[in-house]
C-alpha cells in the first residue's frame, strides 16, 4: 500500500491576483518558478514538482494526438519540429505521446534530434497493449522511436491491462529504467476504476480530460490526486480544438486582461492551471505560435475560485 504524500495548498484570491502573483502561486501548486528560456520574454513559467521524486516540470506540456501523426512526410515532419522548437523556446519540456498515435513517436524522436532537444525533453509516453507480457517490448520500441535513453514517464494508456502493466512499470521504475509512472483515461471514461487504482497504487502522474466544460474530475479525481501527491496531466484541454473554434469571434471577457490572457485558449489553460491539484495541460497543436501561446498561459496571474466560476460561465454562455 502506498504512503500519503504531502499535498499542495490553494492560495488565497488576494495572493493570486495581487502583486508578485506567479511567485506566490507556483509553490502553492506544488512547484517553483523556472527561469524562462532565453528566447522567451513573457516571464517565469509556472512549474510543478513531482512529490515522489522532486523532479520539476513546466506546467504546460505538448500533446501529440493526431497533430504529430504525419507519417514519413518530410514537410510535415519539419513543421512538427518547428512546433517543438517553439514549445521549448517558450519554456516547455513535457511532450506526451503513445504507441496508439501512429507515427507520432517517431516524428517526435526525429524532431527532437533535428532541433537538438533530445536531452531537454521530459518524455511522457504510454504502454498500450492488451497482452501485458508484451509491455516491456512495446515500451522499448517506443523509447527507440523517441531516441531517448529512458522515459521520464510511462503511463498505462486508458487502463488497458493496467494490473500487469503497473507491475511492470513499478519494476522498471525501481530498476531506474523509467523515472515516473502513471495511468491515463480520457473523455471521462472509467473514472470509478481510475479512482480505485489511484487509491492503492503509488503513481507519480495521472492523466485525465479536464477543461471548463468537462469538469467531472473536479468532484473526486483531482482532489484525490492532490491528496495522494500525483501530478495531473490534462488531455483534451480544448476538446480537440472544438472549444476555441466555438469561442472564435466571441469577445474575450474584460477580466481576461487581469489574468494576462490574450486569447480564449489562454483563458481555458489558466482555468485548468488554477485548480488546486498540480495540473499540467498538454494541448496539441500544429502551429508554433500556438505552442508559444499555450506555454505563456503558465506565466502571470492565475484566477482564484470566484474567477474560475466566471471563466466557466463565460465559456458556457459565449
Amino acid at each position, binding site marked *: 500500500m502506498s504512503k500519503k504524500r504531502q499535498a499542495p495548498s490553494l492560495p488565497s484570491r488576494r495572493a493570486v491576483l495581487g502583486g508578485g502573483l506567479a511567485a506566490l502561486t507556483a509553490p502553492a501548486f506544488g512547484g517553483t518558478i523556472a527561469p524562462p528560456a532565453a528566447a522567451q520574454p513573457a516571464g517565469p513559467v509556472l512549474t510543478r514538482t513531482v512529490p515522489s521524486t522532486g523532479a520539476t516540470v513546466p506546467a504546460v506540456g505538448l500533446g501529440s494526438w*493526431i*497533430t504529430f*501523426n*504525419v*507519417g*514519413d*512526410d518530410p*514537410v*510535415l515532419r519539419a513543421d512538427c519540429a518547428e512546433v517543438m522548437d517553439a514549445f521549448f523556446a517558450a519554456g516547455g519540456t513535457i511532450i506526451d505521446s503513445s504507441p496508439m*498515435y*501512429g*507515427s507520432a513517436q517517431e516524428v517526435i524522436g526525429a524532431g527532437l534530434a533535428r532541433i537538438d532537444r533530445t536531452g531537454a525533453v521530459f518524455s511522457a509516453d504510454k504502454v498500450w497493449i492488451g497482452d501485458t507480457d508484451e509491455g516491456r517490448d512495446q515500451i522499448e520500441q517506443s523509447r527507440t522511436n523517441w531516441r531517448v535513453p529512458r522515459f521520464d514517464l510511462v503511463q498505462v494508456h486508458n487502463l488497458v491491462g493496467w494490473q500487469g502493466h503497473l507491475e511492470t512499470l513499478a519494476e522498471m521504475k525501481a530498476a531506474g529504467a523509467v523515472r515516473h509512472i502513471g495511468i491515463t483515461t480520457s*473523455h*471521462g*471514461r*472509467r473514472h470509478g476504476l481510475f479512482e480505485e487504482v489511484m487509491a492503492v497504487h503509488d503513481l507519480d502522474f495521472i492523466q485525465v480530460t479536464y477543461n471548463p466544460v468537462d469538469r467531472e474530475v473536479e468532484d473526486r479525481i483531482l482532489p484525490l490526486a492532490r491528496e495522494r501527491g500525483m501530478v495531473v496531466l490534462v488531455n483534451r484541454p480544448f476538446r*480537440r480544438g472544438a472549444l476555441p473554434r466555438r469561442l472564435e469571434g466571441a469577445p474575450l471577457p474584460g477580466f481576461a486582461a487581469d489574468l494576462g490572457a490574450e486569447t480564449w485558449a489562454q483563458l481555458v489553460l489558466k482555468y485548468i492551471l488554477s485548480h488546486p491539484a498540480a495540473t499540467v495541460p498538454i494541448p496539441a497543436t*500544429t502551429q508554433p505560435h500556438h505552442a508559444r501561446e499555450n506555454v505563456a498561459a503558465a506565466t502571470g496571474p492565475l484566477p482564484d475560485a470566484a474567477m474560475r466560476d466566471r471563466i466557466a460561465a463565460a465559456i458556457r454562455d459565449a
Partner: protein
Amino acid sequence: METWLSYSPQDFLLFSERVYWRLFELHNAALWPAQIPAVVVGLAVVFLILRPRPWSGRALAVVLAVAWVVAGLGFMPRYATINWAAANLVPAFLGYAALVAAFGFLARALEPQRSQPAQWAAVGLCLYGLAVPPLLAVLADRPASAEVFGLMPDPTAIVTLGAVLAAGRRWPTLLLAVFPAVWCVASWATLAILGTAQAWMFAPVALAVLAILMLGGRLGDVQEEETAPSPEDRR
C-alpha cells in the same frame, strides 16, 4: 459496453485532413508518371464493358486484380504510416485480388452483360470512379493529391463496383462486390469524420450500385437466359 458507447467516431481518428491528402500527394509524386497508363487502363475497363468480347471478363479480371495488388502493396503501406490498421488490410487487398482473378477466370464472374440500361449505369459508375476523385482534388485546389484508379483504393473500388455490377447478378459476381463496397463505406466514414466534403463522393456510388442491382438483376437474369450457350456450344 457503456465505455464503448461513450466513444464517438471522431475518437477513432488518428490523423488530420491535411496529413491525409499529403499522403496522396507524396504517393503521386513517388509514382509519377504511372498515373497516365493507369488512367488508360481504367478507360480500357470502360471499353471492355461497352463492347464485350468473349475474353472481356478474363481481361477485366486481370486488370482489376492487378489494380488491387498495386493499391494494396503500393498505397496501403504508405497509409499505414499514419493508420496502423492499414497494415492489416494489405493481406485483404491481396486476397481480394486473388478472388477477382479466380472468380473471373473460373466462374466467369466478370463477363459484361449486354443488358441496358444496367450496362450504361455500370459504364457511368466506372467513368465516375475514373474522373470524379481527381476532379474533386482539382476543385479543392490540391491537384497533386488526386486519387487515381489502380494506384489508390477509392477510385479502384468504384471502378471495380462498376465492372462487377456490369456482369449481372450471379452469386460469384455479387460476392466480388462486397469488398469494394465495404471499402467505400469505410472510406466514406473516414472522409466524413475528417469533415471533408469529398465524403459525398460516395453518395452517387451508393445510388448507382442500388440502381444497377435492381436494373441489372432483373434484366441481367433475362439476358443470361437469352445468351446462354446451346448444348452444341458446350464442347
